[in-house]
Every structure is written in C-alpha cells, then in structure tokens.
C-alpha cells in the first residue's frame, strides 16, 4: 500500500492553474524524485505535501489518514526549501537544533545529534556562525542538516544540493541516501541534476506542466522513456522521423524519410503510431568511419559541424541526411569541422516514442 | 466625600478626607504652611487635585460627582462657576476670619460665595536699560520704541482681559459702552507685540532671551525676571494696576461642607497668611499680617497699594468673553 497518496489534486495561484488532477503514490521508505523543467510545478507539489498551500480540489492521504487539512506543524515532515529559509537570528547550531528543541529532546542528545549532523554535512566548525556569514553552499547544507536531524516521517527536499560542487554533491547525496535508508524515511526529492536524480532515487517522476508524464525506476526512465517529452528531457537529444516497415516480437524495422533502414528492439517501442520518432542520445551514436557503405542498416552519413569540449568527451553537431544530430566522440581523436563521417545508431539504444 | 483614589489609604475609618482642587505649584510650601497643619489640627487627610484654572473648572463642571470639596480659582473662572451654580453657598458665620481681610477680598463673588485668600497685581515690567524714557503708564506700551519688543498676556489667560481694559483707558472710553474702541486701540499696539503669551514662564523666557523690552505681567513673575535681568523694573501704571483675586469655594455636592468652611477659615488666618507671605507664595490678604520692607518685596502688600488697585468686573467680562476672544483672535493674534 502507498504511504503517500495524492488524489486528483489541483492547485492554482489565482487564475494560474499549476497542478491539474495530479496523482502521485509513494511507497513507505521509497525515495521518489521529481524531475522536470523549470516552472513545471515541482516546488508546488512539495509545498502542497508539506501543507504550505491548500489544494483547490483533491485529497492527500498519508499513512491511511486524510492529511488534506492537517496543519503543517502536526505533519512531522522535514522540508528543505529551495531558498534555504534559515533563521537569520539563530546560529548554525541553533538552526539545526531548532526542531529537536521543540521535541523537548534532552540537551545532551541535542548537542550530540546536531554535531553529528553538522559533521555529515561538513560544517562542524561552523556551528557558531550565523547564516549571513556563510557561503551559498554552506547555507544550503545547514538547511539540509536542519531537516534531517529531526528524523521526520517524510522528507521533502527541494533542490537541496543545487549550490554545491560536484564532489560535495556526491558526498551529500550519499549521506542523504544513507540516512534515508537507515531510518527508512520516505522522501520526495526535487532536483534538476539527472545524474543525482538517477543515482539516489527508487523512483523518478518526470513532470511536465503540472502533470507526471512518466513515473518509473531510474533505469527504465533512463533507458526507455515513454514519451517524447520525457525522452528529450532525459537526454535523448536526437529525434528522427521514422515510419513502420515491419513489426516483430524481437526486432522491428523502420524507414527514415530518406529511405534508410533502422532496426530497433521491439521492447523499445512506446507508441503505436505509424509515423513515430526514433530517439537516441548523443553518446550512444558511434562515429564509425569516414564515408563507407551507404546501405548499412542503422547508419547515417554526415558532415561534422561545430564541436564543444565536455570534459570527458567532445560533442559534435553532425549534419546528416535527416537533419542535424548531436554526437559525442571520445577524446582520443578530434574530428574537424567539414570532415565526413558515418554514424552508427545501435538498435538497442534507439527508443521509439 | 468618598475616596476612590489610588495610593491614599482609607484605613482609619474615622479619618475624613478633604479633596482640594488647586494649582500645582509651590506644593511643598503650601503643604508645610497650610495642608499639614490643618490635617493635624482636624485629623483629616487632604488629597489634592492639581491643574490650571480651566482644566479644573471644566472637570467639576462636567462631572457633578467629582468628589472635589474645595476649589481654588482665579476670579474670572470663579465667577463662571458661580454663574453655573457649581458652588455651595457658604455660611459666613463659620468663617470668622473673613472679618480680618481687606474689603476687596471679602466677597468678590457676592456674599453667598467664597472669599479671596490672596491678591496679586497685573502691571508692567520693562527693561530700564534698554528703554530711553521711564515707563509709568499703560499708554507707554504703545510707544514706537517698543516696536517688535513687547509682549502682552493672551486674552484667555488670567491677566488677559486687563489688557483690554488698559486699552480702553488709553482710548479714554468706558469699556462697557464701547469695547470696540478698546480693540481698535489694541490693534494699534499690534506692531509692538512679538507675541501674546499664555504662561508667565514664557514671559520670563522672552525677557531673559532679550526678545522683549516690555511686557504686561502679573507681579509674581517679576522676581524671576529681575533675577535674570537686573535692569528690569516693575511699574504700577499711574492709571492703576489691575487686581486679580484668587478665591476659594466649596464645590456643590461636597459632603464635607463644615470641614471645608473650617479650612477656608484656616486659610485666612493670620498665621497661615503670614507664613505664606514669608515664603513668597501668596500675598497676604489678612489685614493683621505685618511685614518688613524686605519681607514685602515682590508681594502685593499694604493697605495703600491694595486700595489703589483697579478691580475687574468679571461678571461683565465673562458675558462678552466669547466676542472678545473672537475680536482678539482676528485683530491681535491671528
């Protein structure tokens, strides 16, 4: 049974409807991420669950009780705000100790738990500072510690790591995940960082304009997104119009407009339309060779355009017969602008939406 | 009278309380000379209500159950109180000391009401050093030399109406016949007037700061001005200074009437009058009080002086006051 259950919820700011007949179920102990473009309603969803805004209609069930009208402070949820919302008049220690003090935790234990938590977020030396005297990332970590230390029934995290550098972010997310697992705290997590999202979540919900388009395990979302929006959002940068040729249980065959043949794994077909889009990530396209046989399946010819260095790889804009495609290539060899290349699009890596 | 005031214990049942409404000045001296001896003598508690004439009169006017037993007022206000029937009639037989006071003080409000317990003068004070010629008449106020250098009391203050009377003298009209003339005369005084004051402390200030060279004032302000400005002189104008009589009355509804009369009698007694005179709080009105020249300095003292004073018909003035204020506002102090 679901621990948390949002049923046909609608939320509007004035006339501006943000969530419309929104549904979400979360199992006890799960960490569900909300992923979606800026302004799609992630924060709104969290605020709704947290009780800071009221739904116009619909219900919120938590732990089999109707929580729709339960006041915020009775909810025992931990919340990390996108804007931190630290108490400016309290020191870092007191900010974190705030929730514990309210729970009448003994002094000694407060001290112990707060310092433990500050240690986890790497701010043990900063306990006497005031929020104003901290850097952006430090503030964010205080906000995180403040929410975690009370071991809430439900943890609501709104981009809790957005202002941290890569290494620290990894460290923090590992920390969050560990605590979350240990205490079995059900968690709703909003992030815009996909790697973070995929590595930390039990389930990912991809939102678009106030609606969840795809709720699934990270692996499934990553490999096999159900809609074009989701595919695009999780990094399938390249879309090729295809029309069905023949469908098989294992492998199906499609044609591109210019007559190229594409074989695709049938489990990757997520739509029954006749003309469909084949989606593939830049890093899954292989640059095979200059020129070569035009008739090969799952290949395209193209000319290299501008390129960007991404650290691990180069990313090329390749002009092909079916339009511009983004292709990543490793750093062993850098292709020059104008070079002719052949691209190979592996059939397991193409998703049809 | 019952006592609901805070801070005053009513623990001893038999001890009565006398509530006296008075000005709030020289309280320490009055306490020593008047209130405490009386409290002792008659085994009562005296509770004071303080404020200026208008405030206190207004309060007993509006609040018929105000508990106040005795009220001190300047003449102009006392007369209003009489007219509105705010005071008890007194039994003069219970106040034998009335016989020992000067004639003008015996019954300024009529036989039925309280006597005056002190008198003071309204005259002129000027800075002799800054002035070319001696000042000895009300008319001297109009001199060009005092342009922008004079101050007179506001019409609404105790010494105010006297100025209209002085103007009438200057214009040589009888006030009751034609006060318009007096006001015409007053508006000729206007260029000289820096401001009209309503607190005597304000006047003292103007003298000491050099804002004015001449001012119309009550005599009790003179001492202080003289201290600050040794060249200041007091003038009893030759037309006569104006008398102001402060009287005491029993407030209607007082249930301590007898005690109140005893108090008035006590207040008029030679001993109290002398003590107050020596402390320079009130000029003595009891004819038996004898003072040396130094002791009399600054007081309105002596038969001759008191008899030379012009009295003011407040009953008449009160009847035209509202018109006077209006005229005053429009012509003198805009």
């Amino acid at each position, binding site marked *: 049974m679901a621990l948390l259950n949002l049923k046909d919820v609608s939320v509007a700011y004035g006339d501006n409807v943000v969530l419309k007949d929104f549904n979400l179920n979360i199992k006890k102990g799960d960490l569900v991420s909300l992923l979606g473009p800026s302004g799609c309603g992630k924060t709104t969803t969290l605020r709704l669950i947290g009780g800071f805004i009221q739904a116009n209609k619909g219900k919120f069930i938590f732990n089999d009780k109707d929580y729709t009208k339960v*006041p915020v402070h009775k909810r025992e949820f931990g919340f990390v705000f996108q804007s931190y*919302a630290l*108490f400016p008049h309290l020191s870092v220690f007191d900010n974190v100790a705030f929730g514990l003090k309210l729970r009448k935790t003994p002094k000694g234990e407060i001290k112990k738990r707060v310092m433990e938590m500050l240690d986890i977020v790497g701010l043990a030396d900063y306990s006497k500072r005031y929020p104003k005297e901290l850097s952006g990332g430090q503030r964010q970590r205080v906000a995180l510690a403040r929410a975690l230390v009370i071991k809430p029934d439900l943890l609501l995290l709104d981009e809790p790591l957005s202002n941290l550098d890569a290494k620290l972010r990894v460290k923090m997310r590992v920390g969050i995940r560990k605590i979350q697992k240990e205490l079995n705290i059900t968690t709703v997590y909003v992030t815009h960082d996909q790697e973070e999202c995929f590595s930390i979540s039990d389930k990912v919900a991809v939102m678009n304009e106030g609606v969840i388009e795809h709720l699934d395990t990270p692996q499934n979302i990553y490999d096999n997104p159900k809609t074009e929006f989701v595919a695009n959002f999780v990094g399938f940068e390249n879309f090729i119009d295809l029309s069905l040729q023949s469908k098989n249980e294992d492998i199906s065959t499609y044609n591109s407009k210019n007559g190229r043949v594409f074989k695709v794994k049938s489990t990757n077909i997520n739509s029954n339309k006749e003309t469909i889009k084949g989606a593939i990530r830049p890093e899954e396209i292989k640059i095979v060779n200059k020129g070569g046989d035009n008739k090969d399946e799952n290949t395209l010819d193209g000319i290299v355009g501008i390129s960007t260095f991404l650290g691990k790889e180069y990313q090329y804009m390749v002009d092909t017969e079916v339009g511009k495609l983004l292709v990543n290539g490793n750093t062993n060899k850098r292709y020059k602008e104008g070079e002719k290349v052949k691209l190979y699009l592996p059939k397991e890596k193409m998703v049809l939406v | 009278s019952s006592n*609901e*005031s805070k801070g005053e214990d009513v623990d001893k049942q038999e001890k009565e309380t006398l509530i006296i409404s008075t000005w*709030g000045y020289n309280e320490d001296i009055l306490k020593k000379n008047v209130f405490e001896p009386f409290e002792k003598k008659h085994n009562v508690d005296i509770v004071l209500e*303080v*404020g200026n004439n208008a405030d206190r009169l207004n309060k007993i006017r509006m609040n018929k159950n105000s508990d106040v037993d005795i009220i001190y007022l300047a003449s102009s206000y006392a007369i209003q109180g009489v007219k509105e029937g705010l005071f008890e009639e007194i039994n003069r037989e219970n106040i034998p000391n009335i016989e020992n006071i000067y004639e003008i003080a015996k019954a300024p409000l009529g036989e039925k009401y309280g006597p005056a317990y002190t008198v003071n003068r309204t005259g002129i004070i000027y800075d002799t050093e800054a002035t070319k010629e001696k000042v000895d008449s009300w008319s001297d106020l109009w001199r060009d030399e005092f342009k922008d250098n004079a101050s007179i009391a506001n019409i609404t203050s105790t010494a105010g109406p006297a100025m209209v009377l002085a103007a009438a003298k200057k214009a040589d009209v009888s006030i009751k016949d034609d006060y318009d003339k007096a006001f015409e005369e007053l508006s000729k005084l206007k260029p000289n007037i820096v401001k009209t004051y309503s607190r005597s402390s304000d006047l003292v200030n103007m003298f000491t700061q050099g804002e004015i060279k001449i001012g119309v004032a009550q005599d009790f302000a003179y001492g*202080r001005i003289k201290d600050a400005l040794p060249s200041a002189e007091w003038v009893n104008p030759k037309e006569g200074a104006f008398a102001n009589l402060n009287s005491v009355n029993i407030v209607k509804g007082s249930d301590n009437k007898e005690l109140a009369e005893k108090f008035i009698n006590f207040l008029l007694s030679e001993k109290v009058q002398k003590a107050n005179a020596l402390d320079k709080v009130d000029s003595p009105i009891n004819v038996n009080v004898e003072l040396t020249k130094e002791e009399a300095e600054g007081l309105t003292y002596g038969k001759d002086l008191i008899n030379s004073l012009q009295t003011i018909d407040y009953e008449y003035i009160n009847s035209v006051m509202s018109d006077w204020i209006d005229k005053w506002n429009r012509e003198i102090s805009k």
Partner: protein
Amino acid sequence: MNTKSRFLTIFSVLVYTFLIFPLVIITAAAFGANDYLKFPPEGFSFKWVANIFEVEMFIRTFKISIEIAVFGTFLALLIGIPAAYILSRYQFKGRNFLQGLFLSPVLIPAIVFGFSLLKFLIIKMQFPVYTSLLIGHTVVILPYIIRVISSSLESFDYSIEEAAVSLGAGRIKTFFIIVLPNITSGVIAAFILAFINSFNNVPISIFLTGPGVSTLPIQMMSYVEYYFDPTIAALSVILMLMTAILMFIIERTLGLSFFTK
C-alpha cells in the same frame, strides 16, 4: 563598511546634532546655577535636581505615569501584536479598511478624544479615574503598536516562518520564537513609541485625572504654568538618564536575544 557613503554619514551626524543639541542646552540648564535657561550656563549646581525631590507630587505622579505607561503599553502590545500580524500576514477583503481603523486614534485631536472619554467613561459609565486613564492611554497608543509592528512584518520573509512550522513548531510558538525575534527592532520601536506617548501624554490625561490620580506631564505642565526655573529641565534629564540606564541594563543582562527566550 561600504554600505554607508560619506554623504550619508555626514547627513546623519547633522540630523543627530539637530536632535541632540537642544538636549545639551536642557542638560546644561539642569545643572546650571542660573534660574532660567541660559546657554552656556553660569556656574554649576545640583539645586534643580534636588528641587525635583522636594516636590512630592513629582515623585507620586511619576509612579502613576510609569504604571499607566507600562500597563497601557503592555495591554496595547497584547492586543496590537496579534492584530498587526493578521493585518500584514494575510490578504483579505476589508484589510485596508481595518488598517485605517486601527490607525484612527492618532487621527483624532487628543483633546476632543479626552473630553469624549471623560463624558463617557467617568461621567456616564462611572468608571474609576485610574481605570479610565489606563483605557484612554491604551487606546491612543494602540495605533503606534499596530502600525509600526505591521510595517516591519511586511518586509519579513515568511518562508522562514514556514521552515519553522515544518520543523514542528505550532503557529503560536513559531510566532514567538521565529517571527518576533526577527522583528525585534520593530517591536522595540513600537514599545518605545507607545511607552513614551503614554508617558508624555497631556491632552488625554488632563481629562482623565482626578483627585490623587495625576500624571507627571500634567504635574510638569502645572509647574511651568507659573515657574520657569530649570527644575523641569532637570526632570527631563533625569528621565533621559533613567531611560539610558534601563536600556543599558536590558542590553547587558538580556542581550539582544531578549525576545528570543
């Protein structure tokens, strides 16, 4: 600090000079030998200060003034802070109207208000003088409390409040431990304004005083009606001194987190 330009500093110094200089004159007079205001004074003397203690009424009315100001301000805070909070925290119909309403006591010439209260409370309702005085003061200072506090609440970031609530603090608790500490200066400003207004009030007190119940300003007014020695100046200096000491003690003993606890 680079948030303050030189112009601003000079300007503020000038404004403070304007505010403080007359007080210097008053202080000088209070300890001067002259029996009128003179600057610079001639000689030095404690006689005016000593004089205050000669006049018993100063002491007695001072106590009453303090009582009324403390109780009145306390009452007004009790009534005003919740109202201010609602008025600035929530948007609702009639909010502007209510805001205007709560401000109205300062719009009314105090003398008329005092007179009306005398007629209504003391004469008609037969309230004791002391109670009437307290009520009158509470009413006139309420606007200071409400407006000053709600204007500082308006620039308060309410997400902080939400954070506290999410950590399990009830609304009321949140108000006391989170909202209040962050508008401390507003509250202090309101308190000071209200207190001083009550403490200094003349026009209302005039009507609402009675036998044995009078306030210091009324007493001072009566005093300056006839006297012009620096006793009142000395009294003012003493008042300033006491305020300074009081604030110093609050600062030292309770610190600025006074309201947090």
